[in-house]
């Protein structure tokens, strides 16, 4: 804060008063939805503007408009005060707007330098790519951001953090004046995040205007100079970050004061339903043993990469464990495939909803009945009436919002897709349901609904395993928590031991 105050007292140079890029009353509609309605945004040279809002608030739409992927239906984009249009991504790049995306789009089989310069490689004679110039310039840019990466390396040989640096180098390879960072720290470790902050400071001194999109308040308050809040596609507030508190930002984002409230649950658990002993995998996890009771919610906490999802997928039959035993309802079982797992009463709601959870191009009712076709059919022949009945029963229970049960799942919002996946599994009448990051990427309202529903399921006697990286969620929902670290169980906590500090300590191994 002190530093910021000092900076503010510096005499503002002339160009600092004039925004590089301005959005003026920009509107974007899609058939049936207004993604943005008359929003305005100003980005100043040498300043970081944080763009905050819930999922679906329109942040990504703004990024896509600024990078020429979407065309606004109304309003104006201005650069240095004069109106401009970005009919293609190329035009946005030419105007000096570049973006570092949440999920970076890079190419594994190409070299680092080729990735950096893809689409605008330096040309030599006959219009061919001048490889040596490209390598030199790539090295220059990488050194400029403190990345010690050889430009000739193939991208696939780099770790995730270095790949991210390549993505940043790519964004800087065009002579950018405006840099958009869309949740740049989502996949980074604490050390890498620190390095990114340094990079942001460096970009600021170079006079670049930065639009910083993040869900993490600590980093917003650390690096942003000003903020802009969107809610439901509209601008609800902006100003200097020094003049606002975290609570005020949250209130603007959700339109009400939010304290995370978890449903009150009676912790009355029943018989042992699942016993896992000595589950092991050559590279992902080792020595996993625990028990689970009916009506219990067992939380699995750990850092990203602790092997939680890998273990759950192995329990669900996706990958084979090298050793270990499972007992379900007193019976020793061998699970070789998801089909086996479903048959034995274990189901898994994956974190990667789009790829693993739902089949986007099939209608809702077919998604719901897919694992239950044995029950809705007769001698292997489909009975559509039965399918609609089963699908209706479970989707209505989850309060699904959809035009019809014949609608393709791909046309639903993320939260509703998640409901279809959960409905699909509940329809199999499972004994154990594994929820892997069930509220990731869902807005606050839907989150509460999922939590309430989990409590309801447990109350009905279903055993729930919840993998989550959000400490409030883990503590608020679980009867017991298992903390994993580097593929092993670091601690099993219950009762008063379930405290945020304890979780973090065990997860980090300190």
């Amino acid at each position, binding site marked *: 804060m002190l530093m910021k105050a000092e900076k503010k007292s510096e005499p503002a140079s002339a160009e600092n008063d004039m925004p590089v890029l301005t959005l003026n009353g920009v509107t974007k509609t899609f058939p049936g939805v207004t993604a943005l309605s008359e929003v305005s945004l100003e980005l100043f040279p040498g300043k970081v503007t944080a763009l905050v809002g819930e999922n679906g608030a329109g942040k990504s739409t703004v990024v896509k408009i600024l990078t020429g992927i979407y065309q606004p239906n109304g309003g104006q984009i201005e650069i240095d005060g004069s109106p401009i249009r970005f009919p293609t991504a190329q035009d946005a790049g030419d105007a000096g707007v570049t973006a570092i995306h949440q999920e970076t789009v890079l190419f594994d089989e190409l070299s680092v330098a080729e990735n950096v310069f893809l689409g605008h490689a330096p040309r030599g004679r006959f219009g061919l790519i001048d490889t040596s110039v490209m390598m030199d310039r790539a090295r220059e840019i990488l050194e400029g951001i403190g990345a010690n990466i050889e430009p000739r390396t193939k991208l696939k040989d780099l770790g995730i953090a270095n790949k991210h640096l390549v993505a940043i180098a790519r964004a800087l390879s065009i002579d950018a004046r405006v840099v958009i960072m869309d949740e740049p720290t989502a996949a980074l470790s604490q050390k890498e995040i620190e390095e990114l902050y340094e990079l942001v400071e460096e970009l600021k001194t170079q006079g670049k205007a930065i639009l910083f999109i993040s869900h993490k308040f600590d980093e917003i308050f650390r690096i942003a100079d000003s903020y802009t809040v969107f809610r439901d596609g509209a601008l609800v507030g902006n100003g200097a970050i020094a003049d606002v508190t975290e609570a005020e930002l949250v209130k603007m984002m959700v339109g009400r004061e939010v304290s995370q409230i978890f449903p009150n649950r009676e912790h009355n658990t029943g018989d042992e339903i699942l016993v896992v002993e000595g589950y092991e995998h050559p590279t992902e996890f080792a020595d996993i043993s625990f028990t689970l009771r009916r009506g219990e919610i067992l939380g699995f906490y750990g850092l990203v990469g602790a092997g939680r999802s890998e273990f759950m997928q192995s329990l669900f039959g996706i990958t084979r464990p090298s050793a270990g035993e499972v007992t379900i309802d007193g019976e020793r079982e061998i699970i070789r495939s998801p089909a086996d797992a479903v048959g034995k009463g274990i189901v898994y709601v994956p974190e990667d909803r789009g790829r693993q959870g739902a089949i986007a191009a099939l209608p809702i009712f077919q998604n719901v009945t897919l694992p239950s*076709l044995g029950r809705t059919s007769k001698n292997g022949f*489909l009975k559509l009436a039965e399918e609609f009945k089963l699908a209706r029963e479970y989707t209505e229970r989850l309060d699904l919002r959809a035009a019809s049960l014949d609608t393709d799942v791909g046309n639903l919002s993320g939260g509703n897709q998640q409901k279809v996946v959960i409905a699909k599994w509940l329809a199999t009448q499972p004994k154990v349901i594994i929820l892997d990051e069930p509220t990731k990427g869902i807005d606050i309202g839907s989150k509460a609904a999922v939590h309430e529903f989990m409590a309801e399921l447990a109350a009905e006697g279903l055993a729930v395993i919840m993998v989550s990286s959000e400490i409030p969620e883990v503590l608020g929902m679980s009867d017991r928590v298992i903390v994993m670290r580097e593929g092993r169980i670091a601690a099993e906590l219950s009762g008063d031991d379930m405290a945020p500090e304890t979780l973090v300590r065990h997860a980090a191994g300190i």
Partner: protein
Amino acid sequence: MTNTARFIPDRLESPLERRLKSWETLLLAVAVGIFIVNSFTSPYFLNAWNLSDMTFNFTEKAMIAFAMALLIIAGEIDLSVASIIALASTAMGAAVQVGVGTPGLVLIGLGVGLICGAFNGFLVTKMGLPSIVVTIGTMSLFRGISYIVLGDQAYRGYPSDFSFFGQGYVFWVISFEFVLFAIIALLYFVILHKTNFGRAVYAIGNNAIGAEFSGIRVARVKFILFLLTGLMSGIAAICLTSRLASTRPSIAFGWELEIVTMVVLGGVSILGGSGSIPGVVIAAFVMGLVTFGLGLLNVPGIVMSIVIGLLLIGVIALPRLWEKWRA
């Protein structure tokens, strides 16, 4: 929660409405159009026996095309089908030389088809190899065996009752092959559109990982599809060998592309996930009508393949252009 739930209708559009707007309807219109044009351009076209002859242009290929449609919908492909015909026909021809009778020949034809299909299926599902590579390989392998066995020779001397499969008539102008084609079409219609297995095929083609995560045994379904494609190639081999009454290693050369063309023309997405059996049936007739109509006008074969190629591109491109123009 239950009392707050809102009612979600089953469908907004009746199945009939959807069918009217479908690809199959467009294709049927094309087929009828070609039929009408043909009947004006040649006086020989509207003749029961000529029309019956016309069906031989597509019956054998279509039998394989149905199985291929399922395979392509599931996101795989089998380019070795024509070579399976060659190998199965060669095996039958060799068996004839040592005096095997018609029932034995049929079993050999079906057996070779199944073995070849199982081999493809094994390489794709157990070894995890891409089907396009595997079946380009087995395409050369299977036909290569035929060439080694036969060289520039031909097998003849098939028993006279063996000729029924390719040359026999069940009733008046209705050939055995056409009846077989109709039965197989119906069978595949039921398998794809009315059974759990068919649903699994669509699910796999749209998202194989999602299907696996939904408890579908993806590898097993794909293996069965390769088996079916091999089996249908065996059946086609019996019909074709019977019709030609001889086996050369070049038998059915190039059919794999005509079969894939038929499947794609029938509205099956080459990327997998969508398509229907009625579409493939109509596409079979369209291709049969075009080649036969042009044949009656003495158009050379090479021009026919140009016309089929243009038809394929045209029928695929038109709806896209229409969509673009509307948007």
